[in-house]
């Protein structure tokens, strides 16, 4: 059973499973490095998935759907930025409210736009219909079909991981974002606005989270279903933590979860053990808990992550 095709298929499935989690995780990394705890990725993904399906369905163009998902994901995340940075609300409370809000808004708009709750109509063309095999690279054994014969958002996630790694470690703006999460007072002292950096961090997580949602609704599938995010936003938090608040670490952690999920499905196909299916289904989650519990001790959050920052201004 375990032959070349099996390995290639397994690893391709790993990448597909990992993509929405990796995107949400790297978005959350930038957000938390700026000092804002973001547990709202699940909600942001829900909004992104919904908007993508509606806009792609209405325009017939999945690319416009993707852009709209990114835009509205960002817009939705700004509520979190406003609540935590400007109103100094507790980050976890605001994030939790946003997750509930996302469910409410989408099922409300669903009735307004689609006419019924539940599932939208299928989009005429999905991003899954664009499978790009990169010339030359896609013919490398194993790695070729795994990394270089995928659909658009999968490639975008690879690119974004590189971009954000470079951005956080090599650019001045990235340094400011990190400073805002480590020592905001020092950053403010040199004349850079901590508020702006944190707004920026949250916005990035919203834009990328919207893209992660679009992956679920219009690339991996062709319609939006309420509840389709299936807890991936929270798995992304686990990936971010066990990945040490670093884009590459988060990506590897997401791959790990994707691999566990791809494996459990194949365990069921091959009936490797006569046990209730639920044992297989929980496998990825159990492994995630173990990974987080095992790695989290060595993983250090940004020092001022979740710590409110308030500037006292004298009235004049």
């Amino acid at each position, binding site marked *: 059973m375990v032959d070349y*095709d*099996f390995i290639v*298929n397994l690893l391709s*499935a790993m990448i*597909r*499973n990992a993509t*929405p989690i990796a995107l949400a995780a790297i978005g959350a990394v930038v957000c938390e490095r700026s000092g804002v705890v973001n547990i709202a990725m699940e909600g942001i993904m829900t909004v992104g998935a919904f908007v993508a399906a509606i806009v792609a369905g209405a325009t017939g163009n999945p690319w416009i759907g993707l852009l709209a998902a990114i835009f509205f994901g960002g817009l939705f995340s700004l509520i979190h930025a406003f*609540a935590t940075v400007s*109103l*100094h*609300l*507790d980050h976890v*409370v*605001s994030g939790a*409210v946003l997750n*509930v*809000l996302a*469910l*409410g*808004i*989408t*099922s*409300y708009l*669903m*009735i*307004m736009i*689609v006419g*019924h*709750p*539940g*599932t*939208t*109509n*299928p989009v005429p063309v999905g991003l*899954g219909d664009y499978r790009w095999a990169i010339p030359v690279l896609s013919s490398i054994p194993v790695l070729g079909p795994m990394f270089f014969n995928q659909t658009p958002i999968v490639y975008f996630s690879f690119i974004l991981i590189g971009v954000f790694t470079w951005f956080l470690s090599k650019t001045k703006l990235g340094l400011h974002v990190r400073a805002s999460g480590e020592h905001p007072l020092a950053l403010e002292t040199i004349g850079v606005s901590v508020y702006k950096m944190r707004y920026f961090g949250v916005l990035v997580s919203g834009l990328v989270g919207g893209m992660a949602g679009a992956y*679920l609704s219009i690339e*991996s*599938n*062709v*319609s939006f*279903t*309420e*509840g*389709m995010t*299936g807890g991936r936003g929270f798995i992304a938090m686990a990936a971010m933590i066990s990945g040490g608040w670093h884009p590459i670490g988060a990506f590897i952690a997401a791959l790990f979860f994707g691999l566990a*999920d*791809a494996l459990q*499905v*194949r365990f*069921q*196909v091959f009936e490797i053990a006569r046990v*209730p*299916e*639920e044992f*297989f*289904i929980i496998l990825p989650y159990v492994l995630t808990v173990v990974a987080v519990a095992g790695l989290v001790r060595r993983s250090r959050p940004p020092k001022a992550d979740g710590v409110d920052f308030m500037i006292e201004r004298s009235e004049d």
Partner: protein
Amino acid sequence: MKQTLSILLLLVVASALVFAGGQGEESGAMEQGGDQMVAAMATDVGGLGDKSFNDGAYQGLQMGEDLGFEARVVESNQQTDYIPNLTGLAEDGADIVFAVGFLMEQAVKEAAQMNPDTFFGGIDIGGDPEIPNFQGILYREEQSGFLAGVLAGHMTAQYSDASPKLNADPIVGVVLGMFIPPVERYEVGFIQGVKYANPDVQVLSVTAGDFTDQARGREAAVAMIEQGADIIFHAAGLTGLGAIQAARENGVLAIGVDVDQNNVAPDTVITSAVKKIPESVYVVLESVANGTFEGGTHTYGLAEDATGIAPYHSFDDVIPQEVKDAVDAAREAVLSGEIQIAQTRADIQDLLD
């Protein structure tokens, strides 16, 4: 102070939207009093638009309009919504309230006991002699699964030349949502049907563990297609839409569930294992209108024309006449009692090994 206020404000806005989402379809129905009878339903978490049993039940309610019923729907966003939704509908004056889906069993029985003056119906839920105002409606899903299995068993093996979407491997796959009795009956019936048609065909099976996560259904189907499965049957609600999508993208065939799902992917869905929920909901509405409503369990099957498989649509020209005849013969044999179909995996252990 400012913080507390903003927390409160956000919570109020959020909950307002959640409730608006849950009960949006009710508006406008409240003023009409008098003799207008109201038939209501609370959906399972899948909600309307599942192209499956929630839509089926709603269709039944709409058919009831010519009996003088007005249809009302409340959607359940999560399992904790079940009881408030069901009792809420009863308190708003509905004459009969349907709970749709096996997962609502406890909730609907509790609601029926709390509201003894309202009739309740439960799709995929067994009745209870101690609750006379509740009628449980069950289907013989194994019969629908069996006929779909006979079709799949023939098509994947001897008749695999009939469509370019079929390969030489005698392998078919099943995607299940959660492993609950109606889903199990579909699967068990399907396996028996496949083996009845051709004992050499292998049936792969994956349980996704979810009824709303399309991506999981897709991955489950892909994993079986990789192993050579060329017909994917799903009993997985919305999760199954992902399985059909995977079949479409990989150029193999799919079999839909509950209602005729050919419209989901006309070039992929060869047939659907159906249970005629709208018709049985209508029967219940008739009994309410005539005052002949009874509690207990009502089971619908082939004999009532409530189970079976959907038309072949564009595959009518693809499926060889021999296969159609075999399916029809199997239907007759089930009806006459010549073929007994088991309902649980434990009963078909010999076929699973």
